[in-house]
């Protein structure tokens, strides 16, 4: 939580859950191609977007994340054939539900980024960071302890 508590202008903390086969590899490609994006983004590697539980997303918000991104293979391209199709349903419902509770929809985003889309990875992370920066800190779901 130190990110938000330190002095100076607000710097959002973005947690990105990336599937190993597409999006994490896309992140690697962004690195290989030296495409810069804000250091606010921190990636957690998971095998598949379907392996990301809402529990982890909510937990990240509770622990101080200002935005959470889940990134997986494009629908139809899942390394595990169908994982992201399930994930797509799970996350669309979660997204709409969070909005229903009054959370800014921008805070939880899902993106499909393939292993060849390093530039897209960087662009998505940059854009997300800027959006969240504009929104300000997440106060709605975070623990106050």
């Amino acid at each position, binding site marked *: 939580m130190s990110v938000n508590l330190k002095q100076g202008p607000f710097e959002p903390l973005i947690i990105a859950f990336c599937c190993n086969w597409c999006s994490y590899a896309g992140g690697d490609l962004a690195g290989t191609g030296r495409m810069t994006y804000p250091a606010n983004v921190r990636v957690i590697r998971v095998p598949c977007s379907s392996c990301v539980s809402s*529990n982890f997303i909510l937990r990240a918000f509770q622990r101080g994340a200002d935005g959470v991104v889940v990134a997986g293979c494009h629908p139809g391209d899942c390394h595990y054939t169908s994982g992201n199709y399930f994930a797509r349903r799970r996350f669309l*419902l979660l997204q709409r539900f969070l909005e229903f509770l009054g959370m800014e929809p921008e805070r939880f985003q899902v993106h499909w980024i393939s292993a060849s889309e390093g530039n897209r990875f960087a662009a998505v992370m940059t854009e997300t960071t800027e959006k969240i920066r504009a929104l300000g800190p997440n106060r*709605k779901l975070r623990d106050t302890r």
Partner: protein
Amino acid sequence: MKQLSERIKEAAFGSLSSGQVEMVIGWQKGPLWWQSFPAFITDPGETASLIWDPFSVSNLNKYLLNEVPKKKIALFLKGCDALGFNQLLRDGRVEREKVLLFGIPCDGLVDPARVEATGLSKGLLQVKKEREELVFYYKEGQRKAPARDFYYSKCLSCRYPNPVTCDEMLGEAVPCQPLERFANVSKLEAASLEERFTYWSRHFSRCIRCFACRNVCPACSCRECIFDIAEPRWLGKAKESGETLFYHITRAYHVAGRCVDCGECARICPLGIPLAELNRKFIKDINELYGEYDAGADLDKEAPLLTFKSDDPDVSA
């Protein structure tokens, strides 16, 4: 009503005395006018104490989880309970052949709070239903009022007043006149983000995390609930708005696509948090995004979160 009570007694007596079941779960009258408690009867001689009245709201399904593995049980199901039973069945939590189901058509049950609100509760001894009216009995006499005025809101929007499943139906089917069940969800959806947040924070801030909403829910039937598990400790113990929100989001999310919309969560909540609206938001979204699905009723359809179509609506912004 009376007739139905008699039939319940007969059914219970018959199934117990014939040895068909070892236990009957039904309702018994408590000491106060609004009290109708679950009753667990193993002696045919005690079946006379079973009742059916406008307060027999408790869903008896979940008692099966503790009782069924040991013996065969007879159970009384209202329309909403039958949906819940089907969900338990789908979740593999009950074995159909170990349960004898008596169906009870039910056009609605009385919310004691509504009786209180009208002031009719003062000196009230007993409430009975006669056709479309409630009869309130006092020392000094009786008063009548239209029954529907006192029904639980969940009953007013009930779409399955007649059980969708049972072994024997007791009583005649009742007509179904549900109010629009998504009215409140739609109203909230139309509100601004901040209004919604204020609305829910106000409600959630009162939550004491008693877990009654979970305990009563026929879709919440895990052997050990995620909220109780110590390692990993998913839900902290502290009174903390983030934790409360985690609880409510996760509870509703876990029953998404499985909630039968019986409304028990909201009814049971001691603090009056409109929990059913959370479930209905999911139901409404699922219906809109993936096609109509009625958990507990659509037995031939796959649960919406356990299937997909390749052309489902996208989630990526």
